């Protein structure tokens, strides 16, 4: 394969999390895009520190310092950003940092979404830690882990917002007044970028603050100082002695067991944060690469219903499987009706967590394979088809190279460095 006509995607084995480095050839030098860097459960042989060390090594810049043209943080879940806590990043030169609009520090809607999530995560965490202490079980552990994933990750977010070398431009996407899906940037000559999510639609914003979460917080506020439910009436109304009405002990037990909504609230928080995922299609020449982050039903639906976005989806040659292979991040319609599997490549970064038995979802992976998508799994890289995927350094990463159809003619050799303007 001729140098200069393939895009290489490297999936690092972070355990449970995401870290993908995309290298795009241009005439001057290769351009690099990093999608996420995080983990909430380490891989068998490597830690996130090992991954970051290798990643920095993989990105030599022209001045000898490591350099990445674009860093994308798809959403703020720990398993996508925790790696940015590490000190190494201050020495990495970065051209631009892309985040979903919900990360914009100056946008009041975004602020409300973030505060809502943080408050809910903190309240759930407090409640679950107490319950875990009292009676630890696998279900509670799974819930606690999902909540920790959503707790604010100050260190990592500081790097993304204020860190890196080279004072990179921050973009929050999509722009408020962005009329078209697709834009280009001088730091990635010859690459068209389409933003498929998250939406700024008012209904979507409402869903980002799940009603279940609001009710839950309200319930927490309702407790008295000792953490007990308030009494609806003063004690003089209570009947001492025999029960006045016919109510069996069994019924009383059932009535006492009401009102533990934690599991549903945890799931809705997780889904809400995933729902802020930046969903991007990169187009190099005529070849399309789909990075949906952990986008959920709402974003996918909007994309599949928009004819322009649907065309982009159907042109996908490479698919980063959403949300570590969970049920809700890859719609059946996308697999069954939109993609043309033949020659398509997919990568899934995952690592089973005992308390989340549904992730990755085996039938989904089988369905993708059934549609002729060649798949590599970060935790089982040895099983990936060696004719398509290349496994490096004891399973620390897996590569796939994808040939570009109609490569762009003569991209500029050296773009202007102040390239903050967006060409549309």
């Amino acid at each position, binding site marked *: 394969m001729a140098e200069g006509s393939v895009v290489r995607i490297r999936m690092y084995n972070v355990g449970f999390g995401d870290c993908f480095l995309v290298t795009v050839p241009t005439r001057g030098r290769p351009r690099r895009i990093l999608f996420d860097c995080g983990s909430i459960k380490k891989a068998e042989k490597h830690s996130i520190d090992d991954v970051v060390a290798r990643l920095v090594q993989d990105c030599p810049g022209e001045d000898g310092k490591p350099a990445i043209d674009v860093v994308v943080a798809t959403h703020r879940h720990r398993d996508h950003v925790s790696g940015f806590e590490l000190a190494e990043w201050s020495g990495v030169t970065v051209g631009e940092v892309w985040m979903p609009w919900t990360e914009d520090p100056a946008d009041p809607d975004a602020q409300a979404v973030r505060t809502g999530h943080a408050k809910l995560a903190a309240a759930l965490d407090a409640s679950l830690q107490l319950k875990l202490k009292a009676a630890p079980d696998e279900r509670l552990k*799974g819930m606690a882990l999902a909540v920790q994933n959503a707790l604010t990750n100050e260190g990592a977010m500081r790097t993304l917002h204020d860190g890196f070398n080279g004072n990179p431009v921050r973009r929050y996407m999509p722009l408020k007044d962005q009329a078209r899906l697709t834009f280009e940037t001088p730091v990635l000559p010859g690459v068209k970028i389409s933003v498929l999510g998250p939406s700024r639609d008012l209904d979507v914003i409402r869903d980002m603050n799940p009603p279940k979460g609001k009710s839950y917080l309200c319930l927490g506020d309702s407790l008295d100082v000792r953490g007990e*439910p308030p009494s609806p009436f003063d004690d003089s*109304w209570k009947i001492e002695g025999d029960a*006045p*009405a016919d109510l069996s002990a069994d019924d009383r037990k059932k*009535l006492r067991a009401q009102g533990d909504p934690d599991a549903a609230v945890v799931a809705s928080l997780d889904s809400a944060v995933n729902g802020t995922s930046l969903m991007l299609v990169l187009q190099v020449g005529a070849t399309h690469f789909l990075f949906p982050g952990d986008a959920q039903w709402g974003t996918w639906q909007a994309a599949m219903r928009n004819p322009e976005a649907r065309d982009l989806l159907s042109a996908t040659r490479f698919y980063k499987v959403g949300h570590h292979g969970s049920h809700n991040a890859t719609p059946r319609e996308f697999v069954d009706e939109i993609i043309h599997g033949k020659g398509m490549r997919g990568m899934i970064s995952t690592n089973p967590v005992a308390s989340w038995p549904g992730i990755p979802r085996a039938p989904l992976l089988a369905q993708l394979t059934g549609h002729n998508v060649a798949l590599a799994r970060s935790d089982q890289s040895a099983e990936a088809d060696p004719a398509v995927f290349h496994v490096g350094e004891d399973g620390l990463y897996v590569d796939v190279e994808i040939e570009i159809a109609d490569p762009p003619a003569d991209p500029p050799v050296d773009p202007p460095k102040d390239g903050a303007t967006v060409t549309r």
Partner: protein
Amino acid sequence: MAERLQDPHAIRPPSRRPLKVFATDPMAGRTAGNRITVDVENEDPKPGPRGDRVAVIDYDGAHDCFYQQVDLNTPAILMQGGLEPAEADPRFHQQMVYAVATRTLENFDRALGRWQSFQTREYDRLRLFPHAFHGANAFYSRELNGVLFGYFRADKENFGRNLPGQLVYTCLAHDIIVHEVTHAVVDRLRRHFLEPTNEDVLAFHEGFADIVALFQHFTFPELLRDAIQSSGTTLDTPGPMADLARQFGEATGMGQALRSAIGRKELVLGPSVMEPHERGSILVAAVFDGFFLAYQRRIRDLIRIATRGSGVLPKGDLHPDLIGRIAGEASATAQSILGMCIRAFDYLAPVDVTFSDYLRAMMTADYEMSHSDPLGLRESMIEGFRRRRIFAEDVASAAEESLLWPAPVNAPQIPVDSEQAILVYLMRTATNFGRPRMRKLDYEKGFIVDQDGEEVPGLTEDVAKALHRYASDHRDPLQLHPKLPIQVQGFHSVFRVAPSGRLVIELVAQFVQTDKTAIDALGGIPLRGGTTVVAAADGTIRYIIAKPIHLGGEQSVRDQAEARIRRQLGYLDIADALDPETSFMDDEGLKTRMKTRADFAKLHFR
């Protein structure tokens, strides 16, 4: 009666008992129309109150205690027509829950032409728990044969119309009581409507409960007066009346979503509206729009009289007499719409309901009561549904004639004469209607348990056997599967007086068939087919309303069966995608996920 035979001068007890309630909730307490008196059937309730079919049990699960209970027959209470509204007195809470629930049931009794019983093997009444748990939630539980109301402290920041930190009782909100009791009634009428086999099923349960709450609310003329006065000269826009409708659940933080579509014309039914509450709110809005059209039609003459034909109302306040007359018309229209919405139930198949079915059932039910449409109710309702893009499926046009269920040709009669059990049942229900204390199901004759081991409410073994013989002999015309077992899922006789004075007697039988082979893959909800048969008193069939499951029969039956299965699978996908918990489910969880999703405790917590 018996007392009068013994003592010709005995004072007859009144047939109705007045009780005081909040017309909306305590937060609206200071407005004039909010503290109202409703009257309910005087059934001589025991302390609790514990009536013939509902029992209020004030057990607090969060504190494991009982509260003092009200005795409505205490002279001091009788003399003032029920306890005065008081938030701090649990006995008023019990009175209000009892009064509003009873009134709701009476609305069903009247519209359906039969007495709604809540008797089961285990419990003989519907149990109402006004302070069951701590939480901003209230829900019906089939398992407990009851409705559980929560209480909580209002948010210190977002307290809405409450005071910050104030205690809020869901059992003091009129509409929440009606909504939850309606869920209980619907679950008795159609057990399988809690099985989400398509996107409309749960939305229907929610939307219908809300329709009943809304229109029962609108039958209080006191409440409507304010809304009408504040409309001023713009009686032709639903503004203030829509606001009144939307107040539901404001104080409790519950339910606002359900009526949010009222007054917002742009919200219509479409494939992206899938969440049960949102979808249900479109159904509510369609019925509200239909109501408003009918109401406008009905007050046109009053406006003409008041404006001497100009139709333009003068600026300033309307004359109180005019408001009184308009409020009366609005509340009478609400009562008619409520009756129409409830009567539709007898014309629904036992499984897999859709909004389209409901529209057609509503049209058919009303047509059977009155062939002409003097008040334009049906016409208004068709228009209301059309505006919200709820269309009848598989019909030639949106005209009324096309929407009626088709009348079957040469359908096999229900053997009223030859089957002794049916005849006895018919006579017993006929004599019992209007005789409150003779309604207990005769359990010595055995009760019926369906394929899932659940009791079929209100059905005795001998009647079920007779109907089973009938259905087994006529599988084809009833569009039943030739091999699958038939479950008799319900049998009622219906006695209604039409506006013309005609007595309408109907027999309604439901048959269900179940195919459990793919139950795990379908998330715990099997494939079901079912047929509702509506017959005249002599057994002549009027309607056969079927949801077939038979893939080998006549072309039209097969097509329907195939389409239904496809739709069930399609909805399974959508429900999976919409539920954030899907991703975290293990194999066992996946096997029952559709059942779990229909749990009201979860569904109502939002």
